[in-house]
């Protein structure tokens, strides 16, 4: 099976300084993979490379089999329409209402308003937002609601690949659970592939088939969470706070 996402010996840099070298992993279609690591370890930069916002210093990134670094602009834009990205902090357009924010990707595709409206309502509903939030401005929303609107904006395009950067941060446990249920449901029904950056162990355990741990400028480990939890490597144990639990 061809991977949905494939990194081959990629070097990730930030402002010209290499922060990750020899990055190589695959994400298979329909898989939910977590990317974890300490703050500043290069997870978000890795995600930016995946969207094509940054270029890798070396190596190759493939999405749905397409070589990202060799794609012409138009094809890259077309490819991006298959990817939903939830940025850290939401990145909502502050001058647009919630409805307009979520409708924006559909407007760009030239859909008629009569189709856009129900799609936006569904996306808001999937993200756990009440219909009354549609006319509000982002400045009128709480932090958790901003994340959910951003999620709705991702979901409205029915993405094949969902990239989530810290999606559950700022959400209360109930909303976080609802979010996890939505992602699981989407994955189950539509076979969406998900690559998620998170520090939320609960979300990682419930959602991810596999976890990739980033640290010390490279990929430290990769595998199922229950397998990684058995690891004796203190760096890996630190991510799962295993020593804290066993040696309080």
């Amino acid at each position, binding site marked *: 099976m061809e991977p949905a996402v494939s990194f081959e010996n990629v070097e990730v840099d930030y402002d010209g300084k290499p922060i990750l070298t020899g990055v190589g992993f695959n994400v298979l279609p329909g898989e939910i993979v977590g990317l974890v690591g300490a703050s500043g370890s290069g997870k978000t930069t890795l995600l930016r490379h995946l969207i094509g916002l940054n270029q890798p210093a070396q190596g190759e990134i493939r999405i749905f089999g397409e070589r990202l670094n060799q794609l012409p602009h138009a094809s890259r834009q077309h490819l991006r329409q298959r990817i939903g990205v939830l940025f850290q902090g939401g990145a909502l357009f502050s001058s647009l209402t919630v409805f307009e924010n979520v409708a924006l990707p559909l407007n760009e595709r030239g*859909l008629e308003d009569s189709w856009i*409206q*129900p799609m936006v309502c*569904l996306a808001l509903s999937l993200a756990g937002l009440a*219909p009354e939030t549609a006319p509000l401005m982002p400045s009128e929303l709480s932090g958790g609601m901003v994340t959910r609107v951003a999620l709705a904006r991702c979901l409205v395009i029915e993405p094949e690949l969902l990239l989530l950067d810290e999606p559950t941060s700022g959400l209360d446990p109930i909303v976080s659970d609802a979010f996890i249920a939505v992602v699981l449901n989407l994955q189950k029904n539509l076979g969406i592939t998900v690559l998620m950056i998170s520090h939320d162990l609960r979300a990682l355990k419930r959602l991810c088939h596999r976890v990739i741990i980033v640290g010390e400028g490279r990929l430290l480990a990769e595998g199922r969470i229950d397998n990684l939890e058995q690891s004796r490597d203190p760096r890996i144990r630190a991510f799962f706070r295993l020593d804290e639990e066993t040696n309080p």
Partner: protein
Amino acid sequence: MSEPRLAATVHVNGQAEIRVQGSWTLKTLADRKRLKTMEQEVSRLASRYREAPWNLEAATLDHFGALVLRETWIQAQPVSLIQTPAQASLFARWEHTPPCLLQKTGDPLHVWLRPTRWIVETLGGVLATVGLLINLFALFLRQLASSLIRPQKVPWAGISREIYEIGVKGIGIVALVGSLIGIVIGYLAGLQLQGFALRSYLVFIIGISVLRELGPMLAAILVAGRSGSAITAELGVMKIRGEIDALRAMGVDPAYRLLFPRLVALAVVMPLLVGWSDFFGLASGLGAAALTLHTSFPALVRALPQIVPIVNLWFGVIKGLCFGVIIGLVATHLGWEVRADAGSLGQETTRSVVLAITLVIALDALAAVLFQRVGF
């Protein structure tokens, strides 16, 4: 990704079945022409084979595909559906999706009364802004007095940085625009007075117009456009990013840390820029006049202090100081007014330039009337 297709199959027992095939997803149906065609096709088959079951099992469906089928079936609902559990859940999700509000609740005020409300609100807004500017000026004076008592607490580094940003970085453009305006005045005045023995009158026109009006006004307009807008935008972004709240939380007075250095810098820099603008305006104005009238440039320069009283220079410089304070008050006040959205930042920055220039011109007009006997 295969195209969406529909096929009607009639079995040997005469029973018809509609098969939905291919990809019925947002990606394949986003094309308006194709969407219209598929809608018509669904409608046509649904009306023609009213008793036929619809088999969706061979189709790839997403929410949009399900929506298209569901909305088109409204005219002729299929009697039965053959679908996978995942497809059933897509339709079920549409069943449970509530319609969302597109607008907040309507304006209760009668349509004829809305202009009146707009006038009242606008006037109220203007008065409130003037009140807040006066309040801010009073705060600035208090901070100034407190700085004189405790000079060790004055944010000297901030003041120095602002003087550099507003003054040093602005001298090039002020010199350029001052020179160009001087050339225009000198050339036009020279042309009008050609053939008359009115050299002293020419020096008077250039000297008075540059020292009393054009020098201070040009410097004010350039500083309002260049630095006033930058101050509003900078404070606005700081407010949006929560930096001002962070200062408050640390026990630092944001007004003293952020507003005071900028106001002091503008009050210091503006008179200097007015003098700078006057110098280039006069030099180029007299130079252009000398060339137009074929007269001696040094003779015109020597005549200047005898014909134009020096008080005009001080009058212009003091006006510059007042303009600087006005620009600073407007820019900092509107930076403070920025709300947490990008649109507000743009609006307040524009307002800052427009309001500062308007107030500067208003004050200039007032000064022209009040001090009409000064300097002549």
